[in-house]
């Protein structure tokens, strides 16, 4: 075993890359859940984003249109969930699971012709002397643009929820939808908008997987990232900056175990591969044991504007 082969700077840099897809999906889901909706279809929306982003990027020859198309496709897909649960009052858990299955199936269908192809990928930004700084340069100034977009999104969501009136109204709808309705706020409209945003974020996360992280298309390539994103929202107690911590923690364990595998650690490979998921479960158990964890009051409850 040779731990010396693990370069800490490169390790941290790759943690940021490996955490980005989950970070996108989780920050979107956080907004959805803060509005009071539990959308379990993150996995399905991510994988749809991954395949649509890949297909568009391959056909246009540029990654950015791929990201845009991925966000749009997943957002539209999430709206089916939105309409079913908010307008037709279908069960959120069952519909969310259905959305995941639909997403997995649809993406396999769309992705068939693209298997084995290579996509254009995002270049790392180069800020010249800044990027050439030791350690800091690679960590802070040497990523592709979407890494920064994800971080900006976290900051944006945090500021939106904390400082804007629209954010306050969104939190109010998630906290007590009857009260929000009684005060005259359009709960269903607010939630549909949140679901749309969450879908777009999940799509970006999926496209980041297929365009940057891997970068190619294989069926079911999200491999549970959507579920991890859901778990991270709980881990974060529905707070944006903690989503960042959770995503980096999970990304960190993922990268670390890959490095350990490469370094030839004397631990069964299957166990190492499973370790990020085990850590996630462990953290969730610890959080639950702490008792109160700040879930929005109306999370997952169906809302009907009855008299």
């Amino acid at each position: 075993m040779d731990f010396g082969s693990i370069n800490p700077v490169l390790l941290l840099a790759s943690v940021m890359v490996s955490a980005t897809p989950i970070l996108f999906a989780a920050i979107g889901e956080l907004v959805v859940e803060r509005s009071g909706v539990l959308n379990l279809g993150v996995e399905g929306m991510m994988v749809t984003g991954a395949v649509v982003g890949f297909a568009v990027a391959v056909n246009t020859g540029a990654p950015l249109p791929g990201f845009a198309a991925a966000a749009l496709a997943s957002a539209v897909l999430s709206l089916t969930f939105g309409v079913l649960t908010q307008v037709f009052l279908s069960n959120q858990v069952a519909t969310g699971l259905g959305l995941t299955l639909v997403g997995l199936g649809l993406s396999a269908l769309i992705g068939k012709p693209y298997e084995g192809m290579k996509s254009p990928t995002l270049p790392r930004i180069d800020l010249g002397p800044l990027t050439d700084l030791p350690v800091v340069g690679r960590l802070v100034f040497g990523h592709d643009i979407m890494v920064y977009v994800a971080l900006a999104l976290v900051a944006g969501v945090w500021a939106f929820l904390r400082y804007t009136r629209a954010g306050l109204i969104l939190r109010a709808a998630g906290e007590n939808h009857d009260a929000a309705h009684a005060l005259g706020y359009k709960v269903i409209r607010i939630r549909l908008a949140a679901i749309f945003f969450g879908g777009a974020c999940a799509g970006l996360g999926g496209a980041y997987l297929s365009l940057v992280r891997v970068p190619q298309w294989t069926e079911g390539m999200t491999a549970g990232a959507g579920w991890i994103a859901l778990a991270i929202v709980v881990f974060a107690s529905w707070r944006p900056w903690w989503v960042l911590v959770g995503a980096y923690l999970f990304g960190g364990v993922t990268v670390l175990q890959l490095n350990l595998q490469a370094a030839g650690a004397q631990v069964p490979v299957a166990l190492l591969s499973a370790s990020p998921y085990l850590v996630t479960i462990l953290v969730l158990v610890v959080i639950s044991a702490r008792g109160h964890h700040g879930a929005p009051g109306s999370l997952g409850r169906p809302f009907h504007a009855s008299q």
Partner: protein
Amino acid sequence: MADALLRLTGLTKAYPGVVANDDVSFDIGEGEIHALLGENGAGKSTLVKMIYGLVTPDSGAMQLRGKTFAPSEPSEARRAGVAMVFQHFSLFDALSVAENVALGMEAPPPTRDLARRIREVSEEYGLPLDPFRTVGTLSAGERQRVEIVRCLLQEPQLLIMDEPTSVLTPQEVEILFATLRQLKDEGRSILYISHKLDEIRALCDTATILRQGQKVDTCTPSEQTARALAEMMVGSSFEMPEGRAHSTGDVLLEVTGLSLAAPGAFGTPLRDVSLSVRRGEVLGVGGVAGNGQDELLAALSGERLAPAGTIAFAGRDISRAGPMARRDAGLLCAPEERLGHAAAPDMSLTENAVLTGARREGLVSRGLIDWSAARGFAQKVIDAFDVRTPGTGTAARALSGGNLQKFVIGREILQRPDLLVVNQPTWGVDAAAAAAIRQALLDLAAEGAAILVISQDLDELMQVADRFAALNEGRLSPARPVSELSLEKIGLMMGGAHDMEAAHHA
């Protein structure tokens, strides 16, 4: 009272199967406190929702100061100068006072200015509030202040108050009334919804009485007796419950030094609660909602286990026994909240009867339910307690509040409890059904059972209880005989006016 501020003409609103308001017309004058009286389901809520723009009338019209007033949403009503304090569900537990206030305003100023204005207005009307406290940590009285301050910040012409005193101590009610009179002196009008007749007689200038969606009468409440108003509300006279002379026996339930952590973020911990109930005695536990009532019931029923040695029943320590064991021993409970806690809403009455009666009534043999016996038991409850329902197969949800409550209480009484614990036995129940339920409890006590009634309705406790104790922030006061108590003393036992002060505004 000079001109009409708000004139309602022929307001009608029908829902599938029920006419909530049928051709209702009346005027609310400038600077008038106008009471809207009626039983549950008489159409009071629908009427005020129309005024507040939450519901659109099928027909009829409203005029505000002579101009047509037809708000299509609450923000329109708010802009026109109508504000509303809700009975429940209009506050957000996890948000701060300032955020809650901002949500109810059309164009709230930045947080810092808003906090200052909240302080100013709350000082002016004697309703002190910290703008940055989380609402979930406030007492019921303080929560109501949040709602009132939220309305006052908008300088309303008409303030609608839906059952504002149901969660207040008598002292807090006094302060609320002082605030309302001050508002009236400023020329604002108040539409005051309640079914508490004494309050209405003390406070209101005019009263409009609704029964089954129709206006029965408009009168001056101070010229009517409470009894006459009650009969106008109900539409007939009814028997008031009467206690029978009975003697009390041995101590059956003894709770000593019971402390229990709060069950959730916004629950209340029980702090060193001690009480005892004798056979043949009714112990009343009063207090403002959210002071540990639900937690006390859960500790007694066995839903939450208590520390060993704190609860003794018939001389045996049952602190660590589960609900089944306690039921077997003769300690039965009828929790509050019919739809969800005391009964399963979508299950039939028969199934609900099995849920608590299975063991004591022998409705289960070798793990299988004896459905004919279960139906028989459900039918017995229905017959004995005059539950109006098509049959035992009806879903609990389909019954009216009063009928389901009679069923829930009757189901326990017919299982011959040695001790019956009830929480809010007549909450949201019409006056006739409430009288029947109270009579049933008194009869049960007369037969030698011990009864513990937890209730927020002080009149009810005065009627049925022999001794009274008050819960305040999870602490239980020592019990005192009801005959020695006045309303004022009870208010003090309930914690008085929780740091409120009378308005000090000229």
